[in-house]
């Protein structure tokens, strides 16, 4: 059963009185919340995700609840709980959904060691994965969202999860975080894109989340093998051309994009070496989504022929 098969009343009741357990990529999570702004947004964005039974163990037990005291009633705030810990300062209650997304990200990059975790968007065509590492502002999420509506399967817009032994990429399709102008760019690029509520005045400016395509969530248990590693940078005076990148340089950049490369020690080195070995590596400065999508489509088509 999927979350979207529950009525909004059932979602509200479960979130407030008990919890909802979901399978999100390789992770099982539990979510509870007394935040009215959170219920409909969560229901909409996670509608395709499979529900889990109450006895399934979870990696992350997340709560989004009012703090005790006056902040429950006056200038309402929300606390993020992981189990019984509150790792962050409270947010304004209206931002419960983005707080959940950022907190869930934190759970992954702070606590996951069974994968080599890279800050990257990942898409795939015919089982071949395109990895787009990049810091916030590099344009990777915008490019990722656009590709997800042009025949590429979305694996993740935030984390590349590499199996340490095989290098296979495990999908983690979640809502794609869009910021500022990117929201309008993606709405214009894909009229069928389902974008959730817009949140203004967040720490990252205005944000909205693209609901992951249903087919991406349905394929969340199908890994893909690394094939292209491309470091994008958004730049107004870009030429939108892929420039080949030497593998040692790609290794250095990729290791800096990993959250747990150092913690994994020699296992991280071996895993990343195999990944770089498998990938054609490029960097690109871009300023035009349509051109980039065409360029990456051509790259994939050439690969199919060889």
């Amino acid at each position: 059963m999927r979350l979207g098969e529950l009525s909004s009343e059932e979602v509200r009741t479960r979130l407030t009185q008990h919890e909802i357990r979901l399978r999100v990529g390789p992770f099982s999570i539990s979510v509870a919340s007394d935040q009215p702004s959170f219920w409909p947004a969560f229901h909409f964005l996670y509608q395709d995700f499979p529900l889990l039974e109450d006895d399934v163990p979870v990696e992350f037990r997340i709560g989004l609840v009012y703090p005790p005291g006056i902040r429950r009633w006056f200038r309402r705030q929300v606390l993020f709980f992981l189990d019984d810990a509150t790792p962050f300062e409270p947010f304004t209650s209206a931002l419960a959904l983005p707080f959940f997304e950022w907190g869930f990200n934190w759970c992954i990059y702070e606590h996951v060691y069974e994968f080599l975790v890279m800050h990257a968007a990942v898409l795939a065509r015919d089982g071949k994965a395109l990895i787009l590492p990049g810091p916030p502002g590099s344009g990777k999420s915008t490019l990722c969202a656009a590709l997800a509506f042009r025949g590429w399967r979305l694996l993740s817009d935030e984390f590349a999860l590499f199996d340490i032994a095989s290098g296979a990429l495990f999908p983690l399709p979640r809502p794609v975080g869009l910021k500022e102008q990117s929201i309008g760019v993606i709405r214009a690029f894909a009229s069928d894109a389902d974008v959730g509520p817009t949140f203004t005045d967040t720490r990252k400016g205005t944000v909205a989340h693209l609901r992951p395509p249903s087919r991406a969530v349905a394929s969340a248990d199908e890994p893909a093998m690394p094939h292209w590693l491309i470091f994008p940078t958004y730049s107004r005076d870009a030429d939108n051309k892929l420039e080949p990148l030497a593998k040692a340089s790609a290794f250095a950049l990729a290791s800096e994009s990993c959250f747990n490369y150092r913690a994994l020690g020699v296992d991280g080195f071996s895993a990343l070496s195999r990944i770089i070995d498998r990938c054609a590596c490029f960097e690109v400065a871009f300023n035009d989504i349509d051109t980039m999508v065409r360029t990456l489509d051509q790259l994939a088509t050439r690969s199919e022929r060889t």
Partner: protein
Amino acid sequence: MVNKHQIWRVPDYLQLRWQSWGEAENTEFVVFNCYSGETHCLNLTAGLVLQYLETEAASAAALSAAIRQALPAGANEDALRQIPDLLHEFDEVGLIAPVAP
């Protein structure tokens, strides 16, 4: 600047892991130091120098002669003049240590 007569070697406890890409003069190396957890990207000359010192102790002068022999045809021999600087950098990041004569 290092003493040109100083003998250097990669300490046994480091346990280096190697990965290389490219061919001939375009070869690049990435080396992982299991002792420190640091990763280093090296060009051809630097990689050959460190690999040599992993198996044998040598001075800058001895290294220069050995690496000249090991460089593939077409490689830029100007890089050999950088060996003293390379040794200084390797010493600073703990990849090599002086050996008593």
